């Protein structure tokens, strides 16, 4: 029907995975995304990769932002990517990583399907802009 008005809203999940207990950055990002008009699902602390995958699939998020400060990114993020693939969700989910991720590990994460990595000092506007431009069109 021609009178239907589409109301697509960007849905994001902000995820804390693994053992690190600092989620200030994740909170800041969640709020910034909310203020940008996105719908944000925050995972809470200490989540296992499977939990993140389950939530991302059920919530059908366009964007999955993973915040990691513990240094375990090279084991945890691939697990999440594999999980997404298992449910056929890897293709059209924009996966971002943030936190403390050394330069030498980045190429591998990108190969795994992480679209962009935002290190310390990245401006919020930059992140929001990136999501707006790259969120999958469905």
């Amino acid at each position, binding site marked *: 029907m021609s009178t239907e008005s*589409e109301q697509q809203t960007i849905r994001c999940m902000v995820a804390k995975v693994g053992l690190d207990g600092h989620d200030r950055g994740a909170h800041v990002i969640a709020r910034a995304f909310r203020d940008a008009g996105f*719908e944000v699902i925050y995972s809470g602390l200490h989540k296992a990769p499977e939990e993140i995958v389950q939530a991302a699939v059920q919530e059908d998020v366009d964007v999955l932002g993973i915040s990691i400060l513990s240094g375990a990114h090279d084991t945890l993020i691939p697990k999440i990517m594999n999980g997404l693939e298992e449910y056929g969700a890897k293709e059209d989910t924009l996966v971002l990583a943030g936190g403390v991720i050394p330069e030498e590990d980045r190429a591998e994460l990108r190969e795994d399907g992480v679209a962009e990595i935002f290190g310390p000092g990245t401006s919020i506007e930059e992140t929001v802009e990136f999501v707006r431009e790259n969120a999958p069109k469905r």
Partner: protein
Amino acid sequence: MSSDHESLLEDLLAGEHRALARVISKIENRSPGYRDLVSELYAHTGEADVIGITGSPGAGKSTLVDKLAETYRERGETVGIIAIDPSSPFTGGAVLGDRIRMGSTVGDMDVFVRSMSARGTLGGLSTATADAVKAMDAFGKDKVIIETVGAGQNEIDIVRTADTVTVLVPPGSGDAVQTLKAGILEIADVFVVNKADRDGADRTVRELRDMIQLGEGGGTGGAGGGGHHSQEVIDAHDDWDPEDDEDGDEDEGWTPPIVETVATKGEGVEAFIDALEDHQRYLVDSGTRAVMTRQRYAEEIRTLLREDVHAMLEDRLAAAGGVDELVEAVRKGETDPYTIAADVLAPVEECVDELELEDSVSEE
């Protein structure tokens, strides 16, 4: 229906979680063709028990829902949860946080949690929620739980899409008058006093009990199912047996029970489930379920018609040059909103009149 939607529907009916998730997104986004998709779902619905849970922020809804889902899973039943959070009226953004408190069933895909936000549409959320419930029902969930903050009319509309409405009342949530004036209490089929280990829980239970008795005795429709009984009788007139009604009037109604729980410890959850099952049984035995189903379909038809007419009016408004110019004209004192409404609608009314005329002519 497009081939994309057809395969999506097939995958959903085959139990693929990704397909269920995507269908709910289409419903939320009102993606082109989503209505055809929902139409197709209807044929596969009707099996799930739909439970609504509402209450003030901090009452412990998410924690109770989590424990409820866990218990259902232990009994071998699958669960769908729709958790509704408000969205910002300014940016449309939202933080949907109920998932965090649902940790007991993590890793179990047979508990499907979906967060939804209001997205600022008038009445749109209750339609979207009802449609998402249908998707979960068609998918094969045994229980569908709708969780929402009880803050206003919108939320009341949403929990009305459930068969059984539970209202959570935290201890010490005000005196009896406070409880009476909050309209949300009137829709409860089951009351839960959560955090029952806290001070003041006994008093809250007592006050609720008084209020329920008041509603029953006074006939003011203060509490629970009794309040909409007369409407039920009217709506069910085609199978209304007056004699049956005479002797059954007193004990026919439903008196909402009060269950005490400590959700964080899982205490009282079994009793809560029993109360829910009692109510489901009552709905079936008393024939109320059939009446409710009919009322719900009537409401769905009305809502869809309202939405369509609303959209048509927006088109008319756009065709008339948009609302800005009209507003400016009112501001300058050249005209007023009533005159504008009449002018904009005049051609529509003419069309409808002509159609009626044609109909009556062709009938003759």
